[in-house]
């Protein structure tokens, strides 16, 4: 009798723990997916802003064709990239070309005084920051998620319900520095 009650109590406690651990994992996974969606939104916004920026710059600095072509090329590559690692790399290249575009703009005072250009520059700078900050939050979430599914005893639950490790959205310093090689 007493043993029976004891067993029942242990089973109930174990079930409660399983439920709690499972819910915790699901919550973390949702947070992670939400963070990824945020990065996605910001990247899309950046892709939408770039054609406008290129058009504005063309009006003042048409003979900087090479830089402009590079930006468009990098943008199209980034739009087509699939998968976390490939996208991260394409986006890093795009960031690099955008930097060189803004560096080129420094030489054109009339362009720098243009209201549309200023607005686009602010939007792009901020979008870049937003990408960086949402990536920061995404990577933090991935880190705690990966730790959680590998640490005992939650790894038992994770194995049982097929929670798998997630990839980080990495920024490689050398990729950011190197401009893409584009042939004209």
């Amino acid at each position, binding site marked *: 009798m007493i043993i029976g009650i004891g067993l029942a109590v242990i089973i109930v406690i174990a079930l409660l723990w399983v439920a709690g651990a499972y819910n915790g994992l699901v919550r973390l996974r949702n947070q992670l997916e939400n963070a990824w969606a945020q990065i996605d939104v*910001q990247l899309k916004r950046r892709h939408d802003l770039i054609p406008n920026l290129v058009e504005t710059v063309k009006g003042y600095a048409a003979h900087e064709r090479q830089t402009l072509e590079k930006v468009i090329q990098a943008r199209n590559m980034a739009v087509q990239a699939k998968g976390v690692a490939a996208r991260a790399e394409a986006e890093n290249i795009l960031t690099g070309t955008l930097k060189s575009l803004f560096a080129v703009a420094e030489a054109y005072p009339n362009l*720098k005084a243009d209201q549309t250009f200023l*607005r686009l520059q602010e939007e792009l700078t*901020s979008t870049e920051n937003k990408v960086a*900050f949402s990536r*920061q939050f995404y990577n933090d979430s991935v*880190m*705690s998620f990966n730790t959680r599914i590998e640490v005992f005893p939650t790894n038992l639950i994770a194995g049982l319900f097929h929670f798998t490790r997630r990839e980080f959205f990495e920024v490689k310093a050398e990729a950011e520095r190197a401009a893409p090689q584009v042939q004209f």
Partner: protein
Amino acid sequence: MWEQIQANRRRSLVLITAMAVVLIVMGYAAGELIVGPSFGPVGLIVAVAIWAGLMLTYFSAGESLLLHGTNARELRREESPQLFNVVEEMQLAAGLPGLPRVYLIDDPAPNAFAFGRKPEQAAVAVTTGLLYRLNRDELQGVIAHEIGHIKNRDAQFMMLAAVMLGSIALLAEIIWRSMRYGGRARGRARSRGGGQAQLIILVVALIFAVLGPLLAQLLYFACSRKREYLADASGAQFTRYPEGLAAALEKIAQAAAPVSFANKVNAPMFIVNPLAADAETSSIFSTHPPLAQRIRILRSMTGAALADYEQAFRRTVGGTVIGPQSLRAAPAQTIRPPSNTGPILTRQDTRQVAQFRAGYIPITCNCGLQTSVPDNYERAEIRCLRCGSILPVPTAAAPIQPQTANRAPVTLEYHRTNRSGWESFRCACGRTVQLSPAFTAPRIRCNNCGRQIAIT
């Protein structure tokens, strides 16, 4: 900040119950003292009603109560896209569920605070003085500090405490006044020879009336100091750039203008104490830790993670602030380089936005004079007070144009040859224009004809 969130939840509960107990005792005493003996239960019922009313106020009108007298106005995105961008960046960095609302307060003192019952419905308020003094990195630091308050549920606790504390202070005031003027009721009570129990209740009530508000305030301030450190730590963690917040705090300290609408109850909500001059050491009555100390901790951080803040705190102050569970969960972070961008709004722009929200239409004349008219101004034109030119009054529905849009188009160009000394050239109208060696702007306005001359 797992511990902080738990602690705030616990504190909110303790605060609500403690306030209920204090109110009930005070209400009972008030009934006995003011109305007469055996009216205690009536006072008790009244007190319970007051407490229920308070909770209702907090849930329905807490925000408007808090913002009352602050002339805070909610901003729309198109009125200050850059400020909204900074807030959105920090919202993403903190992983908040929704974009906080943004309020602008027309006040020259630089300060900011966060409020809101839930992280989903949170809001940040900044003063115009803050906006034009800080550059982008610094503003980011301040907003990150405020978002930290929201994320740690401080904003929620602060609002609850502000509503509760305000009403207790009010009730204590009522008891004191009635005791001073209502001597007759007490005299009757004594002549009837009320029992010893009544006397004890009276004494307890007196103690509560004196100490209640004081104790509540001490508890409130003690929580407030620790939460400022924690919000600083989250600010550094979100921006990955502690120097931004440190520089902002320094600028705020230098400005040292008191906020006109601050009072004892809402003081702990601000990023920097809006009332008192900053002291070197913290006392039990201070709502905020000394600024110099906060800046020193931020500047001595070697990384941007919570663990780095904890280390820096141990070195400069001693003791711990961040709970072990949060420390274990937070990954290590390195500090990012500064972004080197200037203030996001000029003093003129901030004023225009603030005036527009207050129901005035800002007008900028080409001579540089800034003026404004009420948005129900019936005439279509106004004469500039300085130069006498007739200016069209923009309609209220039209969006605010940045100051540059009102300028005359560039008609001339002048190429500088000598940047180290004074230089002069002749405008097309014949007037001589002088350029000082310190002049760096891309254009200058001729004082005689108003032409804009580009300087290259």
